[in-house]
């Protein structure tokens, strides 16, 4: 039984039908993870008790498997009266899990900004929030465009974990076809190729943004 191209093509519409879910989960999780991760890093920098708590939380998140987060949010929280839909749990789980890693990336990006930038901001009277928005964040993004893009690709590639919650993303759809037809090679290959195309598209986009950010402003 060889690779049946006609059958492979016939699986494309079904698998492609799930690309919306995959992209939605990946996109919102990227934003969520970046938002939570940046918040973590700001709290960690502010020091004090919340700083210590966040430091512990980041280590905790990075030391637990992403599946454990998904299972916990989906199967354990309902015992405490918190019932979330599968899609919500998937997005929340990926966001929280990757926020721990992104906080570390943000840390490196901020540490690389010379101290004089903060001092100059204070000297011209910018508020702390304005300093973060107009001085720190843009320079941080410029420093971390490449690793940030890598994590966005990682988040995309983690979306198949949502299969355990029966969220119909691409790889899950492919596997469903395989289970029904007992033909594994074709649907899984199609799903793999689609993931490859998406990942390449993201890294190309990141490269463009990086070139734009770095353009003429290189030190």
């Amino acid at each position, binding site marked *: 039984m060889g690779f049946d191209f006609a059958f492979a093509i016939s699986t494309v519409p079904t698998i492609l039908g799930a690309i919306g879910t995959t992209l939605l989960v990946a996109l919102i999780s990227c934003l969520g993870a970046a938002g939570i991760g940046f918040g973590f890093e700001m709290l960690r920098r502010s020091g004090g008790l919340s700083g210590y708590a966040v430091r512990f939380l980041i280590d905790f998140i990075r030391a637990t498997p992403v599946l454990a987060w998904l299972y916990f949010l989906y199967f354990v929280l309902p015992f405490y009266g918190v019932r979330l839909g599968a899609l919500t749990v998937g997005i929340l789980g990926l966001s929280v899990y990757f926020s721990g890693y992104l906080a570390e990336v943000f840390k490196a990006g901020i540490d690389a900004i010379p101290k004089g930038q903060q*001092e100059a901001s204070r000297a011209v*009277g910018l508020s702390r929030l*304005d300093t973060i928005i107009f001085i720190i964040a843009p320079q941080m993004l410029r420093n971390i465009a490449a690793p940030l893009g890598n994590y966005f690709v990682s988040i995309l590639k983690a979306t198949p974990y949502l299969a355990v919650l029966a969220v119909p993303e691409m790889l899950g759809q492919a596997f469903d076809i395989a289970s029904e037809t007992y033909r594994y090679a074709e649907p899984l290959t199609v799903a793999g190729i689609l993931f490859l195309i998406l990942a390449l598209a993201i890294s190309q986009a990141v490269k463009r943004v990086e070139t734009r950010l770095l353009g003429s402003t290189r030190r």
Partner: protein
Amino acid sequence: MREQSPDMATEISGLNKWYGSFHVLKDIDLAVAAGSRIVICGPSGSGKSTLIRCINGLETYQGGSIALGGVKLGDNAKETALARRDTGMVFQSFNLFPHLTVLSNCTLALRRVLKMSRKEAEDIALHYLEKVRIPEQAKKYPAQLSGGQQQRVAIARALCLNPRLMLFDEPTSALDPEMIKEVLDVMVSLACEGMTMLCVTHEMGFAREVADQVVFMDQGQIVEQAQPEMFFGAPSHVRAQQFLERILH
């Protein structure tokens, strides 16, 4: 408590600062009258940069008081912030914002702090960029400029906020020799316009030309304070004599 005079751009009394157990500023008293130009010099590690960084709140201090335009720092957070806004700072390493154009470097605080419109802010920024003689570089990024040009932009950025006191922290120390002059020329013309200036610098020619007073610091103390003719002609303190011998060949 002595009266804090509003005619004083800044008035420092009994200032003490420690880095851990290191006593970096010892009982500093210094009054800078509005319109005066004071040059602070001294060997490295003498506390001169730390002193002017205390004045605009980049460093904390443990004893004494600093008043800006008659307002004592630290008494009232809002007044302190306003007093600091009246103080412009120029750094040794320029500290321009590398991701913003020259023009945006100058307009950012005008727009965010003083809430001006883009047009108003750009008009003011261009006015000061002309003053430091680089209006044609307004659309460029700092990395595209020479060191001397960058420092002149930094001066324009500080001037945009219309400060009553300009602090210079070794503004020419990071520059190649041929660029020092263009920055000093700008500083001299500022002085001629009556800007109150407090400069940490080793440019003794500049001190001779524009300073009303030269302050010599050593080991965290003001050792000597005199008019430039006095200071360069006949320094009374032996440490000042040694310092001058070393830097004036």
